[in-house]
Structures are given as C-alpha cells and as structure tokens.
C-alpha cells in the first residue's frame, strides 16, 4: 500500500481552501476503517487528510490550515464522536460529520476490506 500523500497547495488564483479530512483513527475496527477511508480519499484527490492529533495538540500549522479549509469532514467510527468533538472544542466551524456506526458498521464486528472502505468513501464524497 502506498503512503498517503499529504499535500500543500498555493492559494494564488483561488481563495478556496483545501477540503480537509479528519478521521478518528481509533483503535477499534471502525476507527481503522475511518482511517483507511480518509487515506484513500486523500490518494484519490477528493480531499486531504490531516492529523487529528495535531488539533488536540494545538499544532499551529494544522490548526491554521483547518481554519482555512473550504470544507472539513470529520469521520468517526462510533458514536463517541471523538473527531467531531475534538474539532468542536478547537472552535472549528462548518464541520461535516460522518459516523460509520450510522452506516451499519458495528464496533467489534467490522472487517476493514476494500468493499467496506469503498462504502465509506461513497458516503464521504457526498459530504465533501
């Protein structure tokens, strides 16, 4: 599997910020699925994944990039909604939210496969 290409773009010619993806990347299977879907969306060019830990840690470059985003999508594996809550605490507005348990992926009973990743990607693209 190739590495996720986390890019940087010039804003010259456009004031629209990047579409930024944050996944919970939690230790449960649904967290892994959220993570893999965000990475694939980045490879596909649908958006760009950024590190949620950078928001929690108040890493200025990541926080300022998120503030400049045109769209932010939070992908949570389960109803704990760690991603959405982290972004909310950081004061980031206009966060679209996708919760994988709402799509039928049960915590502890989800296989991370090409099929399940594709199903998440289909839903995520509607929110980008």
């Amino acid at each position, binding site marked *: 599997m190739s590495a996720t290409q986390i890019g940087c773009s010039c804003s010259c010619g456009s004031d629209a910020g*990047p579409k*930024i993806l944050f996944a919970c990347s939690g230790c449960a299977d649904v967290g892994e699925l959220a993570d893999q879907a965000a990475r694939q969306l980045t490879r596909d060019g649908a958006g760009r994944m950024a590190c949620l830990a950078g928001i929690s840690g108040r890493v*200025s470059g*990541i926080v300022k*990039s998120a503030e*400049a985003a045109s769209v932010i999508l939070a992908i949570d594996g389960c109803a704990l909604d760690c991603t959405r809550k982290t972004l909310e605490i950081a004061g980031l507005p206009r966060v679209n939210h996708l919760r994988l348990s709402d799509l039928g992926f049960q915590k502890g009973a989800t296989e991370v496969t090409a099929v399940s990743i594709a199903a998440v990607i289909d839903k995520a693209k509607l929110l980008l």
Partner: protein
Amino acid sequence: MKIQILGPGCAKCTRLMATAETAAKELGLDCEFEKISDINQIMSFGVMMTPGLVVDGEVKSVGKVPSVEEMKKLLQ
C-alpha cells in the same frame, strides 16, 4: 523576532513578505526574515496551504495575506 514566509514564491507569498516587512517597520520591531520555498520544509510546519506566516516558530496565518493592520496584531 524571527518571521518566516512559507510559499513557492508566487504573488501572494511576495505580498505577504512585503506586508510583514511594512508592519514590522511601522511597529519598530527588529526582525529576521526568511523565505521558505521548499515544499517539504513548508509541510514540516503542518501547513497545507500557502502562503503561510510563521512568527517565532508558530504558524499565525495560512492561505491568505492579512492587511497591514491585521499583520501588526499578529506580530505583537
């Protein structure tokens, strides 16, 4: 104070540098300026869009050119 301008060197990056220099001069600040155009070095700050303004290691703005007055607030 160290001011770093992140960007490949196009129009907005040039304007950001000029704005920072003007604001620093008007505030009477003794600043060291550095342009960073290497993409890997830019991304090491966590920045996903340029231009970026870094003041003493902290990213203050991304993807825009603040006005001189806004810049003064960022430098103070």
